[in-house]
């Protein structure tokens, strides 16, 4: 097991280097304005621009630039400096992380505690009105784009522009440590919107995998033992159905941590997604690279964690 984890981590690092290289290459080759000009501001003289080029290391060859960038990340956790904010990218991302983390974790809790029970009920009551209704609603939410749902939610329920003034609206986010109650209130709508789609996906996923499991022979054995149906479903059925869920959950959380761009934009939450979208607007290459690399790190770590979790969930899985 330990050797497996070490091997996976080494592969993860290699994969990360490849991701860094590709993002680096993509943004290098992208037809964008010279970062030095962006950085220099309006009507800068050529000598100033040349000085900035030297400062940023843009006069080196692409290989050297990549090497500097890579060693900066690996050895100093240095993702470079933002052209626009003139701050270290690592620090900028770190500042934005709590907002994204709040949004993601809260939404994940919500979609797990709502989506999974709906899926279970739907599977048990298969082909009844309840099943068809919840799967129909799920289909609507799966198909609805988050930005649309977000706007609808704001127009309906936000306390500023909403039809009914129920929840705090867009741009009301404050940090958890600043004002926990306001933090909570400001995130209610974003959580609901972000988890709506996910709820629907999870409900369908649970329903599907539970239905498959309930046809297994060992479920018949559990019933033949005289177990109450509740135990058959929740213990024997869900024990097997939970595997695919963990995989999806791990990757979903990881990819949202890399920036819930749409939700953060609609609700003006200062998270990594917003940082990213603003950086694109400013042509701020180092931030774009930095956020992509961070997202990749999250995904790679989540993959490893999911695989390790599998060994605990399913005794048949053994990693040599």
């Amino acid at each position: 097991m330990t050797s497996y984890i070490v091997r996976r981590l080494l592969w993860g690092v290699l994969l990360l280097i490849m991701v860094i290289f590709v993002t680096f290459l993509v943004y290098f080759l992208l037809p964008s304005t010279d970062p030095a000009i962006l950085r220099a501001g309006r009507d800068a003289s050529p000598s100033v621009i040349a000085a900035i080029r030297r400062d940023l290391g843009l006069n080196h060859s692409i290989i050297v630039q990549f090497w500097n960038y890579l060693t900066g990340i690996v050895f100093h956790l240095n993702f470079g400096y933002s052209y626009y904010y003139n701050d270290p990218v690592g620090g900028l991302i770190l500042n934005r992380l709590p907002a994204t983390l709040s949004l993601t974790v809260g939404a994940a809790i919500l979609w797990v505690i709502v989506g999974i029970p709906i899926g279970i009920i739907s599977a048990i009551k298969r082909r009844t009105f309840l099943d068809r209704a919840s799967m129909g609603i799920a289909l609507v939410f799966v198909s609805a784009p988050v930005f649309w749902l977000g706007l609808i939610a704001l127009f309906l329920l936000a306390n500023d522009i909403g039809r009914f003034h129920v929840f705090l609206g867009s741009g009301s986010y404050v940090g958890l440590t600043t004002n926990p109650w306001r933090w909570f209130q400001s995130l209610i709508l974003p959580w609901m919107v972000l988890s709506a789609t996910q709820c629907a996906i999870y409900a369908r996923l649970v329903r599907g995998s539970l239905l498959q499991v309930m046809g297994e022979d060992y479920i018949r054995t559990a019933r033949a033992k005289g177990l109450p149906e509740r135990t058959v479903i929740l213990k024997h059925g869900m024990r097997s159905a939970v595997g695919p869920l963990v995989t999806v959950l791990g990757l979903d959380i990881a990819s949202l941590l890399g920036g819930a761009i749409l939700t953060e934009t609609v609700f003006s939450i200062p998270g990594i997604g917003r940082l990213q979208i603003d950086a694109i607007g400013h042509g701020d290459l180092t931030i774009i690279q930095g956020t992509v690399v961070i997202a990749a790190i999250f995904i790679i770590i989540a993959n490893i964690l999911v695989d390790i979790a599998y060994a605990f969930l399913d005794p048949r899985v053994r990693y040599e």
Partner: protein
Amino acid sequence: MSSEQPAGTLLSVENLSVQFPTPDGIVHAVDGISYSLDAGGTLGIVGESGSGKTVAALTLIGLTRTQGATVTGRIMFNGRDLLTASKTELRHVRGDDIAMIFQDPLSSLHPQFRVGSQLIEAMRIHRPITKSAARARATELLDLVGIPDPKRRVDQYPHEFSGGMRQRAMIAMALSNEPKILVADEPTTALDVTVQAQILALLERLRSELGMAIIMITHDLGVVAQIADHIAVMYAGRIVEAADARRLFSAPQHPYTWGLLRSIPSLEGPRGVELVPIPGRPPSLIRRPSGCHFHPRCAYALPSHAAIDPPLVDAGAPGHMVACLLDAAQREAAWAELRAGGAPEQARIAAGIEDDAVEPTEVAG
């Protein structure tokens, strides 16, 4: 005990029918079967896949209820009808009074729970015993069914067991509450021949040691020959012949039973006798053949057999019943010819069945 059940009768199934509605039509999985099981006795139910034998067994403990089946008849056990028993009542019968083991031991144990904990769970649903007492008993049971090193095995997962050991573990689980009846649905089909023999010997030993009754469901007459004292042969959801095991093997009355007997190799019969498969496939249980359901595959069928549905009638010995339209003399002559190694065509002539009869034809869908 109900006054309607003779003393010594543990279970009596009366006119049991099970139907499943499907988009293609109603599946007549079980069509009016009756049998009874004595305490400590062994009943073999034999038939091809799709003859309704498994459905009949699952219905005993109410496991077809969840599948939307329409069930009629009576299943009298301990003086009450299990068909009208409430969900909770039935749940207390399952795994306690009537335990069941299944065809595929590989998939019948939950892969993600330890074998011991699956046994412990089976006990603790029905008995108020502590975890540690249940655990000790689980170890004992594994030992009883012949699993070596049970103290270590009790903490292992099913995938660490071989196929035969898993079936032993299933049996241990079924025995954990000392059931009065063990229903074994093709318990040896998925196993090697040598392991099959061991499992059958184990069941036989447990039956005599623990005094439980066994219902053995199988497609293999060889299996029931070793273990059953009474045999019912099922075809297309019905019992077509039932008799004491000895009687069934010495004087079988139904052409389908002849077919089953002639399709298994025998060490005792004349050598060089070819194994003869029964032609055709089991019929669709949605659109069953008219008249005698077996007539399309029967070598002895007359045109009239496609119209008359034979009732199950006395066949000349106590407890021996058969549903066949041939008369007793014809059956006796035909079986005598078959037993001597004759082909079905010769047996047909020997039985004096006129030649203008219908040729056996394949059953259409």
